[in-house]
């Protein structure tokens, strides 16, 4: 009798354990998807802050899953009309003023995008937060009044990922991604992302303001605000083509 009870209890506990790991991965997946949707069209404003100057760029963004995205710069005048296309892990840049299509080579992937604190690689984001990492729940913290899970993400051996480690804070209730810290392979903090201004956008509630703060540079910051977003819009893969880069408005 006692052995039976023991076995049953053991099974319960054993059953519960794998459920916990799936939970975290699932959590990250859902938070990530909430942010992106299966497709979207949005209007963003990016402000680059430096110790002695500040610059603002406006853009329109189309995404389809994690593989395709197209960005059209709408302001300022000198850069208006430039288009960036991402197809899987390749990136192109169309510069209308010189009538040139430039393919961004892998060597340029770590260079800053448009002078901001985001790199070309950040935009291309060929790595998936879900598939390419091992997730571990570190605990719970309170951020901006929200109860959050603190999750550690460690990249898989074969994954093509530039980070050594990422910490993510995801709110328990709405699964809002509120903060992330990116560490390099030597465990030095490289970037901090802080997301605020939780608002209703189309069919969901998401943070609409993202601050990217590089750790090593005093007074450097890039702020991205999502002014307008529509999710689950009908977009075809054919929209994300080089020819379309020259036509899109």
């Amino acid at each position: 009798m006692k052995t039976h009870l023991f076995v049953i209890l053991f099974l319960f506990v054993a059953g519960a354990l794998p459920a916990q790991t799936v939970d975290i991965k699932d959590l990250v997946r859902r938070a990530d998807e909430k942010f992106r949707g299966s497709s979207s069209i949005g209007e963003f404003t990016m402000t680059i802050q430096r110790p002695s100057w500040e610059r603002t760029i406006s853009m329109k963004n189309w995404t389809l899953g994690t593989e395709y995205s197209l960005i059209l710069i709408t302001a300022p005048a000198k850069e208006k009309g430039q288009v960036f296309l991402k197809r899987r892990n390749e990136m192109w840049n169309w510069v209308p003023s010189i009538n040139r299509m430039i393919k961004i080579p892998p060597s340029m992937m770590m260079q800053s995008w448009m002078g901001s604190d985001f790199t070309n690689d950040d935009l291309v984001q060929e790595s998936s937060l879900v598939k390419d990492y091992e997730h571990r729940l570190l605990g719970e913290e309170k951020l901006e009044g929200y109860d959050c899970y603190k999750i550690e993400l460690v990249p898989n051996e074969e994954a093509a990922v530039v980070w050594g480690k990422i910490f993510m804070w995801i709110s328990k209730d709405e699964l809002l991604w509120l903060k992330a810290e990116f560490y390099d392979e030597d465990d030095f903090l490289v970037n901090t992302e802080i997301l605020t201004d939780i608002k209703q956008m189309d069919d969901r509630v998401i943070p609409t303001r993202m601050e990217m703060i590089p750790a090593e540079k005093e007074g450097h910051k890039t702020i991205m605000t999502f002014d307008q977003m529509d999710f689950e819009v009908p977009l075809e893969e054919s929209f994300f083509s080089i020819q379309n880069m020259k036509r899109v408005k």
Partner: protein
Amino acid sequence: MRTNLKIAWRNLWRNKRRTLITVASIFFGVLLSAYMTSMQEGSYEKMVDMVVKYYSGAMQVHHENYWESKSINDTFEESQDLNQLILANEEVDFVIPRLESFALASSEELTKGVMVVGTVPEPENRLTSLKNNVRQGSYLSDNDQGLLIGEGLADYLRLGINDTLVMISQGYHGISAAGKYPIRGIIKHASPELNKMIVYMELSNCQEFFSADNRLTSLVVNIKDNDLLQKSLRKLRDELNSPYTIMSWQEMSPEMVQQIESDRAGGIIMKAVLYIVIGFGILGTIMMMIAERRREFGVMIAIGMQRYKLATILFYETLFIGMIGALSGLLVSIPLLSFQSQNPIPLTGQAALVMEDYGFEPYMFFSTEPSVFWHQAVTVFLITLVIALYPIFSANRMKLINALHA
């Protein structure tokens, strides 16, 4: 004294052969030394020219952070006040405002990293004679939208006059810089290295490309006389405040200065060896001369000549030998080197290629700076003075009895 001099002079020619041989050794020493120094200084002059005349100018005014960062964000606004302030100094000849940065340039299929120099055509030409270097097409005019590119670059990108060059870069405050421009002219830059990567643009056109409205990376300050450089630099440094700073070409190219100094030091060692050998040669002659005339000296002193007068005569004799040698050396080397500097020796074959690789024209250049010559004269004079001490001692210490028995 005049008698002593006369006697000394006549004594010299009593043994013509010995005198002439000694004088000849000094003569050749001076000639060779002057020749070598002239060659060295000539090549240094060319090296300095390469930096100063064809590129950086005597001094440049920058934003205080520019030299470290070389970033287009560390630029300063062009201001007439600054220009006036600098031009008010009498040593200053003229100024050239410039905006320099890097860009990627491409023709249809080929791309290369280039250095873009935005400048004002007329003053630029005054400093670097850029107009003379235009091999095809024409020089930039004011408000020209076109570019001048180096021959090496034109060859690599396979572009000719009126072809389009596309350039992209990051401009001021991170704004994308992108533009296409017609090639107005192709130049052969004095520096073979710059020839492969330089693009000249008219200043306001360049500022527009980089979205650096009215901004400059440097203000080139040219002075009337290069000897006044340090003085002018000190004055201007006092007058200029943050965020401006001024640098001389030596501060901008310290490697060049060090190269020249170390080469010069090597030359000094060679000359030192040469003069030591000559010095001992003269000493040898003087010693022989004294030994040979020992009896004569003994007699002179015995009959009443004061030792110091004998010493003086011998001193003058030594001095005369040195002076004749030096003078004749100079008299020959000055016209010779003047001719040589007008007609530098061309180098051919491998040596020429190596020179060009390092950015020099393949010639041996000669300098006719006065210092090349009077350095030799002074050195010979000093050596002779030192050697002339020997006969003085000898005359004063001479044992009369031994001399008479010689």
